[in-house]
């Protein structure tokens, strides 16, 4: 799902019996790692280096650091829901360049993908939730 820290999307996915690949779990691992101590995320200088798998050396370290967390989630994904034009509170992950790359990688994976625009009205919201639910149910059927 994208943004990968959207609680609303995570909840919708979980309710339909699927596993949401969320950023919070990755950050939790970082925070709870007793080996390292550089709050708040315990990101180390090794992390942007790991991110090189997804973005070249000339890409800013912040993008690569983010990709070291988001990249493996993208690799694991078996389906994707992408939310475009989401406001900050929906689950923004800060860096526009990282977002562009994440969405591109998810599209490139060739997995079932639902692309949506953040709803602006009550009706649009109902329609959006229905679309997500149908997409998730369809995944179940495809999976047998």
């Amino acid at each position, binding site marked *: 799902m994208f943004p990968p820290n959207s609680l609303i999307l995570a909840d919708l996915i979980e309710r339909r019996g699927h596993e949401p690949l969320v950023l919070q779990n990755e950050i939790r691992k970082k925070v709870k790692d007793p080996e390292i101590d550089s709050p708040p995320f315990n990101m180390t200088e090794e992390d942007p280096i790991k991110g090189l798998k997804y973005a*070249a*050396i*000339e890409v800013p370290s912040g993008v690569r650091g983010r990709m070291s967390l988001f990249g493996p989630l993208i690799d694991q994904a078996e389906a994707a829901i992408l939310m475009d034009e989401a406001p900050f509170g929906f689950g923004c992950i800060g860096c526009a360049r990282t977002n*562009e790359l994440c*969405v591109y990688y998810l599209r490139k994976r060739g997995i079932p993908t639902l692309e949506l625009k953040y709803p602006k009205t009550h009706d649009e919201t109902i329609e959006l939730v229905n679309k997500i639910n149908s997409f998730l149910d369809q995944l179940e059927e495809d999976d047998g």
Partner: protein
Amino acid sequence: MVKIAQISCGTEYSGVQKEIEKAASTFGAEIVFPETDLDYIDEAYEKFGFNCASSGIRLMIARAMSIVEGKSDADAVFIATCFRCAEGALVRNEVRRFIQQNTRLPVVTYSFTERTKADELFIRMEALSTIVARKSLLAREKQEGLTLGIDSGSTTTKVVLMENNSIIGTGWLPTTDVLECTNNGIDQAMEGTGYKLDDVEGIGVTGYGRLTIGKKMGADLIQEELSVNSKGAVYLANHQKGEATVLDIGGMDNKVITVNDGIPDNFTMGGICAGASGRFLEITSRRLGVDISELGPLASKGNYKNALLNSYCIVFGIQDLVTSLAAGGSKEDVAAAACHSVAEQVYEQQLQEIDVREPLIQVGGTSLIEGLVEAVSEVLGGINVIVPEYSSHIGAVGGALLVSGLGNRHEKE
């Protein structure tokens, strides 16, 4: 005329466009811009799937799509964006992969500054032109007759004399005066073979001093080192068919070349700092009071984890080294840390830009430093690294091999 498609953003505004065109025309190539129209730009970038904010980069994607979809004709591709642009760096890399996955065109990528000059692009443009214009020559798998290969590198000069697919003489010496060094190298290579320079049927020259020496000696082949080295590497490693990666950690710059059936199809050159070069290892060995030839075996005995040495800069790298020694670090551990640091930085700066294909053939003088070869393999997750015999003479061997395909020198006379 070789047509090089330029896929770029920012070149006009950086003032480097004329330099790019000058570099291409120097090697008989012409820069062309793939055709697109306004509707196609929207269509293409949506199809590509990268929602970038910059319209210049959207145009770049559309131009790449135009090549892949066969709407524009080109023999090679030059991809460039501004240094320090994050979006440019992201898209540049993805566009490169996209073209390589969908076409057989050779591709070069570059990030430029306002100070980029044609000279810096020469080797890249020359390699692109060579791969296209001299494909049949690069496909040559066997050396014939008596030919001489000279590699006038930034640090060392290497000479190889070959006769009927065998190396019969070699020369090696540090580069000072390029012509004098070459003459001495030739003497070394000829010694004991019973031949003299007049007997040679072809001379192939590569390396930084190639133009000066080539002109002076009337060489039959003057060629940049990317294509020559990769040819020499697959020949010596006996891997002329299929895919491979050639890694040359040099004295001044590093080259990583991917090869398919002996023909290079992608490469990266350079590095951010000398901390990722052979020069760093040379200075390390001097600091440790050992000969460079002893550094490899020393490193193999040490553990890099016991010494912290990971600076991008050669000056700070040596500072780390001195600090480690002062803190009681052993020579072995410091040597291992130096090798590991170079391998790691080459990986971070260059190997990531390229789809490394097994086997990796490591060449150049630094391939003789076994600690470095071990570190490269380890950094790449235990990849199969081959160091062929004569690995430090790779450019000279490539030159001697390729020039044998150009006909008989005496017949021409």
